[in-house]
């Protein structure tokens, strides 16, 4: 048993043993979980994938005379302004009103982080205290008072494998799915993925300090669609999409290496978000969790050609098989392809490892744990009862 304080003391004195989630799997295989529990202090994880539920809060400051911005556009992308006068939220998936799929909220966020000037346009009805009715100007990230990413859902604990059994190509958020099960796509970094290394959320909770977009960020809350009660294997790992995290971090310190706008053909815009979470090896149970390798983490293959919410499944496949390049469904070998970058996930886990080792990035115990006792409810379609005024 080690406490956070003991681990942090080792980090401060430069004595902490830090491994990435891939390195620890190899060590566990060679020397066993007990050895890992005794010798390793921190394990660093990483993921770099498209995360649609992302966005940024911005404060523009006041013009002279001031305006209570009612509708706001950044580079022709509508941003949410139903807040105080000069606050706004840029949603990653919002499309440009001018060029549609070619540019969107994710690209606005990337351009701001890149330091590029962005055109701000706003209109208003004018009030006694905010007389201006329209404004057009140019801003950069440095001009803003606050700019922070607040992503309602990131770092999905596991996800589906997507296949398409019908005769036409499908353009989805899981990439282009070729007809007649021509390919299978998946989107997590497997054994490197943050929440798959802490399947029961013992160390990752509200307040946990993390790597986000190239700087430090924090877990703010459970993510939307957080589904801790998803079916799990004997090792505790969920077999389908499960826990999620809401994350917050200072956009002004982020880098476009780890935050990138993206566009999925005929689906829409998203945002690549780089996330890494350090996991303290408090005891043998945490050591057991971080030692679970790709061969023991499974995802479920779903048929995306079925339009219903409940899609038929074609069974479970391990991340080892997925990484190997093909899976077999109904006797047919189907090539697999990832959508999240393993290479950059590794880079993040490595970078976080150096932060912990050399820059004294200490660990935080959760201020409050994530809930473990609720499911994921559907939206039912019912006749309105007339409650609207």
């Amino acid at each position, binding site marked *: 048993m080690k406490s956070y304080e003991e681990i942090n003391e080792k980090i401060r004195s430069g004595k902490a043993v830090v491994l990435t989630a891939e390195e620890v799997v190899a060590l566990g295989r060679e020397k066993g979980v007990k050895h890992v529990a005794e010798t390793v202090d921190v394990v660093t994880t990483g993921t*770099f*994938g*498209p995360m649609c539920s992302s966005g940024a809060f911005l404060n523009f400051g006041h013009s002279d005379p001031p305006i209570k911005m009612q509708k706001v556009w950044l580079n022709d992308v509508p941003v949410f302004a139903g807040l105080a006068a000069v606050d706004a939220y840029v949603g990653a998936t919002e499309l440009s009103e001018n060029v549609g799929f070619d540019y969107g909220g994710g690209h606005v966020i990337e351009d701001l982080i890149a330091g590029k000037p962005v055109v701000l346009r706003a209109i208003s009805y004018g009030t006694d205290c905010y007389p201006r009715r329209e404004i057009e100007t140019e801003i950069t990230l440095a001009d803003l008072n606050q700019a922070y990413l607040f992503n309602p859902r990131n770092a999905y604990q596991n996800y589906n494998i997507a296949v398409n059994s019908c005769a036409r190509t499908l353009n989805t958020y899981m*990439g*282009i*799915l*070729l007809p007649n099960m021509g*390919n299978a*796509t998946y989107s997590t970094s497997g054994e490197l993925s943050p929440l798959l290394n802490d399947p029961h959320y013992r160390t990752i909770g509200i307040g946990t300090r993390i790597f986000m977009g190239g700087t430090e960020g924090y877990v703010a809350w459970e993510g939307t669609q957080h589904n801790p009660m998803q079916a799990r294997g004997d090792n505790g790992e969920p077999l389908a999409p499960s826990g999620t995290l809401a994350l917050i971090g200072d956009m002004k310190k982020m880098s476009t290496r780890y935050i*990138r*706008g*993206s*566009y*999925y*053909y005929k689906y829409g815009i*998203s945002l*690549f978000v780089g996330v890494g979470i350090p996991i303290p090896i408090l005891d043998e149970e945490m050591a057991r969790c971080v030692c679970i390798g790709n061969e023991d983490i499974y995802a479920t293959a779903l048929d995306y050609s079925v339009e219903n919410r409940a899609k038929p499944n074609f069974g479970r496949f391990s991340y080892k098989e997925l990484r190997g390049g093909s899976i077999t469904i109904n006797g047919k070998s189907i*090539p697999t*392809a*990832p*959508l*999240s*970058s*393993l*290479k*950059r996930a*590794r880079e993040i886990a490595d970078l976080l490892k150096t932060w912990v080792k050399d820059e004294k990035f200490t660990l935080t115990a959760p201020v409050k744990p994530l809930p473990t006792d609720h499911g994921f409810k559907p939206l039912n379609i019912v006749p309105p009862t007339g409650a609207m005024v």
Partner: protein
Amino acid sequence: MAEQRVVLTFHRWQLDKPVTYHLVKDYDLVLNILQAKVTTEEGKLVLGLSGLEQNVEKGIEWLKEQQVIVEPLATGLSVNKDSCVDCGACTAVCPTGALSFSDDWTLGYDEEKCILCLACETACPVRAIEEKF
């Protein structure tokens, strides 16, 4: 023998010439049409030519006599390494394995295997792939 890949550029006034017919009939070449693009100004044709080596050479000579611009197809695609994030979305749609990962999960492009279908250009979420011609 190996297929030789060339980019042919036609002026507007040459567009109605049956060049492919002559290459097949007079020079006994097998043609693989990799891509064709016609605008109001010019036409571009990417061809794979195979046959006897001297016939391929003669065929190309003949095309030049017809004032068709013949250039070797150096590379079909360029993958911008600065914007590529090595995600793999393009590998999902590449029919020939021209795009694939190396052991350390870096995206690699093998132009020998590329048939210029451009499925990858459509699939890339950060527009890192562009056609070269």
